[in-house]
């Protein structure tokens, strides 16, 4: 088993490094293409040509951009993410706490939404064609077609403003007890779950329905297996590959895509950080965030691929 998986994972890590390099170079070029640089943006309205020139020199921005980029890459290998241009703090320090926050939020959301979505998807597949199935389909589409900011705002209005059950803000640093954790995370997690569950539900249902029409499921039926057993024991193990992929893609949204939730609930995570970094053309910070998102995405995708391989004895 490991004989197949280990080289695969190693190969993937190698390719991941290549991908990361492409991404960070692409991001570098993209940032370079954007008009304005950090000196101009920091000075904002007071960016007179001399002031900009002076600040540029002081920030060593007059060195060629490519040179700065390469130095940053070189720094990465020693674990140094560089210094933020915007506020002269080490990027590692800026990202550290916020990445942790993002991971917490992503983790809690995943813990809630993945089981719920898979259950709904599987149930819809078992009772395909039924009222329940149609209801799940319509509800999932309805839920994702409501813009995220509307879900979030409605939740705040209902639970914080009218009912006053939950705080309107999710101040992550105030979590001391489990009860608080529930209160703080409840609304962002619900909002995000709404957004990411639909894809998982639809894909789980599709994958399970697909395998339900195979001869070995028919054979299991002829052995006297119950509908639940057909789905759970026979269809599901063979549908794990596509499901894992859908879950991975959905979860990858939780790192970089949560900007609206972070904004409305004032949750300090990395998505907002990246947006800030782009707004200030803070190259080391943009690069570091991009690398983190990309790495997160690759990790999820790789896990999904490994899971699909492990779930299929023919590939092991």
């Amino acid at each position: 088993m490991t004989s197949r998986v280990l080289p695969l994972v190693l190969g993937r890590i190698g390719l991941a490094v290549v991908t990361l390099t492409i991404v960070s170079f692409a991001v570098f070029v993209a940032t370079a293409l954007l008009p304005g640089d950090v000196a101009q943006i920091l000075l904002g309205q007071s960016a007179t040509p001399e002031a900009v020139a002076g600040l540029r020199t002081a920030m060593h921005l007059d060195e060629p951009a490519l040179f700065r980029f390469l130095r940053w890459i070189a720094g990465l290998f020693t674990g140094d993410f560089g210094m933020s241009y915007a506020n002269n703090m080490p990027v590692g320090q800026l990202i550290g706490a916020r990445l942790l926050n993002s991971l917490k939020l992503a983790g809690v959301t995943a813990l809630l939404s993945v089981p719920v979505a898979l259950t709904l998807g599987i149930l819809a597949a078992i009772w395909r064609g039924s009222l329940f199935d149609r209801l799940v389909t319509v509800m999932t589409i309805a839920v994702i077609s409501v813009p995220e900011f509307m879900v979030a705002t409605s939740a705040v209005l209902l639970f914080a403003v009218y009912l006053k059950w939950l705080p309107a803000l999710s101040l992550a640093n105030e979590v001391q007890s489990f009860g608080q954790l529930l209160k703080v995370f409840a609304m962002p997690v619900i909002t995000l779950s709404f957004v990411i569950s639909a894809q998982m539900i639809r894909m789980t249902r599709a994958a399970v329905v697909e395998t339900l029409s195979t001869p070995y499921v028919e054979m299991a039926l002829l052995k006297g297996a119950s509908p639940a057993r057909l789905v759970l024991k026979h269809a599901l193990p063979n549908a794990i590959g596509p499901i894992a992929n859908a879950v991975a893609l959905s979860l990858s949204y939780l790192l970089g895509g949560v900007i609206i939730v972070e904004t409305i609930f004032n949750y300090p995570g990395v998505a907002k950080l990246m947006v800030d970094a782009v707004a200030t053309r803070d190259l080391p910070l943009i690069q570091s965030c991009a690398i983190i998102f990309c790495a997160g995405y690759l990790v999820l995708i790789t896990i999904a691929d490994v899971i699909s391989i492990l779930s299929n004895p023919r590939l092991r």
Partner: protein
Amino acid sequence: MANLVDIRDLKVEVKTDSGRRMDIIRGVSLQVAEGEIVALIGESGSGKTTIALSLMGHTRAGCRISGGSVMLAGEDIGAMSERQRAKLRGTQVSYVPQSAAAAFNPAHTIMEQVIEVVRIHGLMPVDEAKKKAVALFRALSLPNPETIGDRYPHQVSGGQLQRLSAAMALIGGPKLVIFDEPTTALDVTTQIEVLRAFKSVMKSGGMAGVYVSHDLAVVAQIADRIVVLKGGEVLEEGETESLLTHPQHPYTRQLLAAFEPAAYVPPPVVDMPIKRPLLEVTDVVAGYGTPQANGLPLMVAVKSVRFSLDAGRNLGIIGESGCGKSTLARVIAGLLPPVSGSIIFDGKELAAHGRHRLREELRKMQIIFQFADTALNPAKSISDILGRPLTFYHGLKGAGREARINQLLDMVHLPQTVKHRRPSELSGGQKQRINLARALAAEPKLILCDEITSALDTVVAAAVVDLLKELQRELSLSYIFISHDLSTVRSICDEVMVMYKGENVEITDPSRLGGEGSHPYSRLLYASVPKLQVGWLDGLDADAEMAAALAGR
């Protein structure tokens, strides 16, 4: 003796897209007594599988039991709820599917699936079930009975899977076992073992059986009674012995007559002035898996095979399951580039990879795949499947194309109505014939036929063989004919190549096959071909020489 199974006036209908209904079983009545084995034989597409499934209260998607009753041990299966039926399945009645390979879940170990019936119905403790399974494996003469259950389905051969699926059906100790063509995919030597195992297990368990087959000789060995079907109706029914010796219905006579096919007469050589080799295969080595240090692949399936085939002549390839027959065909067709060796076709050396061959070269050589269902695109209709090579090679369109499709369907004895169906709506034998028709559509010079008659009844198989011969006369075609069915090979081939473990053991004249001068393995193969006489199988045990040969394998 009370009847275990009592089918009265069974009707099964399919509903077409346009809402029209059509009966595929038209009022069949059938009884099986306790402990009795009844064979269902008949034309491919006559509804054998459909009847067998109805015994479990099940129909395929799109079909529906529309009339009659199916009584199992005095209870009406058709009137039960799905939950009640589930209780019977596996315990009272169990099923050995037509395609064992597709019936195993690729994600679970074999043992897990074999004892699943026990788990579902809580028949006995799991440990006990495992012991029983191992005992069954042993009884079915499977290799390594202790450990074979720990493997996954793809890790055992097709013949072994077929036996394992029988174990799966037998473990719950059902009163009735339904076998749907359980030996179709097996070579003759394996077939013997499996048949024996079935017989002894069923006898010792006192089980009744319904045995679906197209092969009269096999049925003769195992069944107490035979029911002959055609077009969804029962034509004739009787004790095995009497039915074989005194068939009443003309169709039955036809079936029996087709069993001993006319010996092969090579086409007259008059219109072939010079003997010209069409295909020359020299020292081909091929296999699967990553290349090793010595340049050979991990698993070498074909070892240094060499033969040559003249235009207008046919070569048969026989050998046990897994000996590399299909691999060789794939190499010739350009699907699997050989490690070494050369293939010269029509005077020109062919590129190893099909991609690099010219369209004309590809057209002139067609391959018919062994697995009929995976070789047809499930999403396309039969007319699309047959029409494509017509358009692709010959630029046919519109009415001309339709006419040619109809012609092709006629050639392979299929009604024109199948044109609008998808492959999943055809029976096993019908799919096989579609594959043949597709190859014919290209109007090739050489057809590589991989087991094209294995799922066909003797009458249709004979007709197909006749068709091939006729085409050969008209178009001076050549065939490479891969088959487990020695009699068919003898009826069409000029030469037979016997393969054993990837090697070519001998090439002889088919009439001399199994004769004194030939290779011992060839003789064993020959001796294993079932004879159309009751008790041939039981008589084998007495045959000391055969027993020794089989034991030595």
